[in-house]
């Protein structure tokens, strides 16, 4: 199967290592990975902040770039959530029947990495080795928009050498919320405080998730506290082996 990597602008710019890890895992599964250079941003930040007319050209671009692929995979629950759950609303706002049709057709083929591996490829053991104590934060959009369920946990439990520990009150939002983290910084930080407390309770050395945006928020808080806990995207754990 030939899949397209939808890297997301956030990972492309800030977390290239997550993109490299995603490519590695997908290739290890025997897939051929394409990276269409014409991709930029899915429009989530604009759309969710209310700049929706501005997001419509980005929706059109996404559809144009990815519509011919059998599967599109991204290491981000929230960007995939944007495509799957909100592109229809954007097409409605654009009053464009053709776009709506294309969006509906494409959105069934766009996957978040963990659900692609577990639900589409039916793989849980990707041959990873990661000898660290790890806890997992299920990001809200993976959990409630995409309903990835236990897919990330199944993948993590199959990693050799891992010391996996459940995060207390895991389903609670970390407080990131995109521009919420800046517009409502005080509330965002109050929510983060409780999330950090739960992460620290696990005594994990690594907190992982399927979204680098939430992880940047959690990691930024941990780093400020000199907590000695790293944040690492799930793809990077899955890409790790004995060799590297």
């Amino acid at each position, binding site marked *: 199967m030939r899949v397209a990597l939808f*890297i997301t*602008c956030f990972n*492309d*710019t*800030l*977390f*290239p*290592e997550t*993109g*490299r890890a995603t490519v590695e895992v997908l290739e290890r599964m025997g897939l051929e990975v*394409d*990276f*269409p*250079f014409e*991709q*930029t*941003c899915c*429009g989530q*930040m*604009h*759309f*969710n902040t*209310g*700049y*929706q*007319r*501005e*997001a419509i*050209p*980005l929706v059109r*671009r996404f559809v144009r770039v990815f519509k011919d692929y059998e599967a599109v995979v991204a290491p981000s629950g929230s960007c995939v959530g944007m495509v799957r759950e*909100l592109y229809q*609303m954007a097409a409605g*706002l654009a009053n464009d029947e053709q776009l709506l049709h294309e969006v509906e057709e494409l959105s069934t083929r766009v996957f978040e990495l963990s659900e692609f591996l577990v639900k589409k490829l039916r793989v849980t053991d990707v041959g990873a080795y990661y000898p660290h104590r790890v806890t997992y934060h299920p990001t*809200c*959009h993976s*959990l*409630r928009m995409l309903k990835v369920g236990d897919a990330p946990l199944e993948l993590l439990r199959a990693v050799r050498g891992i010391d996996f520990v459940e995060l207390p009150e895991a389903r*609670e*939002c970390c*407080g*990131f*919320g*995109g521009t*919420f*983290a*800046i*517009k*409502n*910084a*005080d*509330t965002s*930080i109050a*929510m*983060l405080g409780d999330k950090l407390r739960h992460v620290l309770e696990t005594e994990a050395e690594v907190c992982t998730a399927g979204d680098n945006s939430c992880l*940047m928020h959690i*990691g*930024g*808080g941990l780093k*400020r506290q000199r907590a000695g806990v790293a944040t690492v995207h799930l793809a990077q754990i899955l890409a790790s082996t004995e060799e590297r």
Partner: protein
Amino acid sequence: MTPKTRASDAFSEGKTPHFEESARESLADTQLRRNLGKATQSIRRRRSSAVAEMPDWEELREAGYALKKRVMRHLDEYLLRLEESVTRAGGHVHWARDGEEANRIIAGIAKSHDAREVVKVKSIASDETKLNEHLEREGIRAFETDLAELIIQLADETSSHILVPAIHKNRSEIRELFLRELAVEELSDDPPDLTNVARLYLREKFLKAKVGFSGANFAVAETGTVCVVESEGNGRMCTTLPPVLVTLMGIEKIIPTWRDYEVFMQLLPRSSTAERMNPYTTFWSGVSEGDGPEEFHLVLMDNGRTDVLADEIGRQTLNCIRCSACLNVCPVYERTGGHAYNSVYPGPIGAILTPQLVGIGRPGSDTLPYASTLCGACYEVCPVKINIPEVLIHLRGKVVRHKQDKEGFKGRLDPENVAMQAMAKTFSNPKLYENAQKAARVGQWPLSRSGAIHRLPGRLAGWTDARDLKPIPEQSFREWWRSNRDGRNS
């Protein structure tokens, strides 16, 4: 604890504060944080187990959603049917375009009976219209009889929760309030003792009042049966003891047939108080001789609801049965409390209902759709499946479009708008986008210290107040792909 009196909310004239300003104050109130955290976490756990007992919960939600959807689609017909059936049962129906008209009608009825005191229960709609203040100006005193609402009234505060209006207060605070306001000499902070003092105070009011006033949870179009759902029995007394009863109801509270209660009487108690069955559910159809009030008035109020109905995405907001499950699970509400919303409807439902009822373009209530991380916990628990995140996003769009289209230069020169336009332009072209990545990498050097950014300028400082920021790395993903995989498909 600082007093929570608010002179003005979204439903009053004049300016209301922005959510983020009020939230900052509430977040600093340690007693409030403790009271709210404890209360919402406990009710959240209880709701979750009450719902888990029901094997057909999802079907019930689906039924509740379908019924409400049908009501909204044929609201005009159902309203006329309700008017007819209430009138047939001996009640009087009044129509109110807005809060002011509703207040005038209600005060008029009280005055026609020379009532100087009104006992009142379970009506958030009357908080929307500021009925108590209106009656006061007409020389009529309204006594709240729901225990929590009585507490709020005695403290001269506003409600901070739809169902548990005094959720922000603990029992020792309530004890102090009763000692001060109800002229009792001695009182413990035991809930039974506190309730007893309130009971003695209220019984006298119930027996003396000529006019009782209530809100309504539902009204059946088919039979004209109005329903109040409560836990104390004070609502029962309010609606049965005084000879005249006036009920104020938003036009969206209608349900088609008596049988539809089957669905809502299962959905509501488990979602709101985590009870299998509601303790006091009062139904009445018009008047009955020798039983209950001799005169019944139903005031049907629009007050912005038909505007909500006209909005295809927003109209699902009117499905709300005021259970408060969304408040109890909301991570924002749990920390800021209800007062931060500056609205009689707080929490996630308030964040979508209030801006629609008062209209987009008001600075205070325009901040409410942003009082959410879009985590979706509210949608997950809503018994009538209101997709709150979807409506929040839809309203954010309306707020921004209003700013851009109606506020001229000021709206367009807003720094956020300028930044968003620039980014939209950048993302419209892969070349511009890649150049911007490079420019940002170079531009960040004065901010970056030993592998982290500790301080950002301007509004972005909100991030670095408590969080470090990772600097942009040397090589973007696409640059890596180009140098390692190029020739394949770039």
